[in-house]
């Protein structure tokens, strides 16, 4: 585990070594403001909460988070540095976790920079700040789920564009798995428990609860185990495909 910190530090630094970090943060902040104030009707709702803000996060992340995740492994593969990295005395877990945590913290930084909205809502009314904190936590967990999926997709290919598209599609499937769009495919023939299982995989349903300030241990476990499973898959994919 000694190398995890070293890998984490390098990865996080590499985001800020290129314009990527700044572009991402600016776009994220602008879009979340646009979504909250125009599409979400933050003022018109007249409610002192951040539900219009969090409501759009699953959709905002759908395009922005895969853009962060796509470079995680595809770039190493493309530039050949994967050979350097994997011949250093670093365990597979340290590599996968270090890279993932760096990306997750990076998205976390972008998320924290939306703090003016907390000031705004506190200025306008007296919101439940505990619920807002839970909302932020949920949003960060959601981003972690997207990132873990994106990490695995990035490990599959050396082409970042392909990694991006695959991640968007995979994340989209996880968003809509609770919707009739997906459930109708199964409802004719599948047993109820399978339907429930599929519906329970949905990001939206889980996130909806957390973003309203209800932190259920099961939802927390859902996001953590989702990340664990996708990161494990990342490690397996890297082992299988490292030399391609």
């Amino acid at each position: 585990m000694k190398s995890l910190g070293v890998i984490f530090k390098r990865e996080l630094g590499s985001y800020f070594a290129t314009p990527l970090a700044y572009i991402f943060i600016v776009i994220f902040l602008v879009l979340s403001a646009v979504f909250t104030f125009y599409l979400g009707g933050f003022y018109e709702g007249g409610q002192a909460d951040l539900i219009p803000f969090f409501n759009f996060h699953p959709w905002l992340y759908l395009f922005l988070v895969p853009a962060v995740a796509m470079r995680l492994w595809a770039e190493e593969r493309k530039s050949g540095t994967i050979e350097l990295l994997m011949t250093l005395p670093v365990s597979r877990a340290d590599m996968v976790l270090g890279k993932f945590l760096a990306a997750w913290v990076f998205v976390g930084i972008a998320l924290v920079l939306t703090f003016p909205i907390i000031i705004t809502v506190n200025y306008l009314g007296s919101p439940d700040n505990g619920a807002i904190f839970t909302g932020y936590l949920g949003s960060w967990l959601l981003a972690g789920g997207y990132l873990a999926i994106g990490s695995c997709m990035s490990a599959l290919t050396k082409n970042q564009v392909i990694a991006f598209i695959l991640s968007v599609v995979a994340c989209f499937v996880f968003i809509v798995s609770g919707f009739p769009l997906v459930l109708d495919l199964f409802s004719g023939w599948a047993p109820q428990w399978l339907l429930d299982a599929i519906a329970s995989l949905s990001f939206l349903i889980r996130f909806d609860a957390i973003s309203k300030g209800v932190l259920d241990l099961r939802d927390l476990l859902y996001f953590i185990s989702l990340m664990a499973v996708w990161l494990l898959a990342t490690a397996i994919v890297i082992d299988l495909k490292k030399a391609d």
Partner: protein
Amino acid sequence: MIKINSLTKRFGDHVAVDNLSFEVKPGEVLGFLGPNGAGKSTTMKMLTGFLTPDAGSASICGFDIRSQILQAQRQMGYLPEGAPCYGDMRVKGFLEFIAEVRGLRGADKQRHVARAVEQVELQGVLGQSIDTLSKGFKRRVGLAQAILHDPQVLILDEPTDGLDPNQKHQVRQLIQQLASGSNKIVVISTHILEEVSAVCSRAVVIAHGRLLADGTPDELEARSKYHQAVTVLLQQPVDSQPLLALPGVLGVETERDGHQLTVLAEPGAVIFPAVGEYARQQQWQVKELSVERGRLDEVFRRLTAEEAA
């Protein structure tokens, strides 16, 4: 000590490394020779833990590359082919990252980085991002990361490929400097034969993943048909047929319209005195008379062509 035992790697139907076995002892600079696609890089990738062998085993300083790969990797410095580095990092930051991964911290880290920087002469570019460096400098950064932790085993995959003659010379000097007087192992893969004569104490030739020859560069040269051959450079063409009657002469090759004779020796025979004597008797106008050590490239071609046939 590197022990390689029946190492095999397949890619689909293609056998890249086929039952390869050899050992490298401390103090040796091993030249790993072979045509492109012979399995040199694949073997190195297995030794360094990037690829997993399909069969066979290998150990580095006693650590098995399957079960103790992290310990084995700590003993090794590796320059992958093309010297990939994180291009968006600055040279100093990159080397510090490698040092930290190698478990070096604080003053220890600074000392190791400074030593590696000095050895490959990177002082002038420490603050530059690696992407902006020339090919020669990038290669040196790759070398610096490989030697940074003063490893017992240094594995360099085509360290001079694509460099200009001056840079090649520098890299070779560096390799000699690293290997001299230490008990370290250096393994260099190459298809440039002059490099083997220049830096290696031992050469291993492989083709199609199989071992073809193993010996010192001198021993390999002795396998050349030009070993102990005598080259005569003449003012005027002469009748070379009588040379065939001399003891130990195997044949005569004529080049440059008869102005150059190469008299081949039978294996083990020394024919230089006899040829010289004969030329003097016949009063040939000799411009130059020399003994050949043998031609590595000819040995290499013959070995690898036999394999292909």
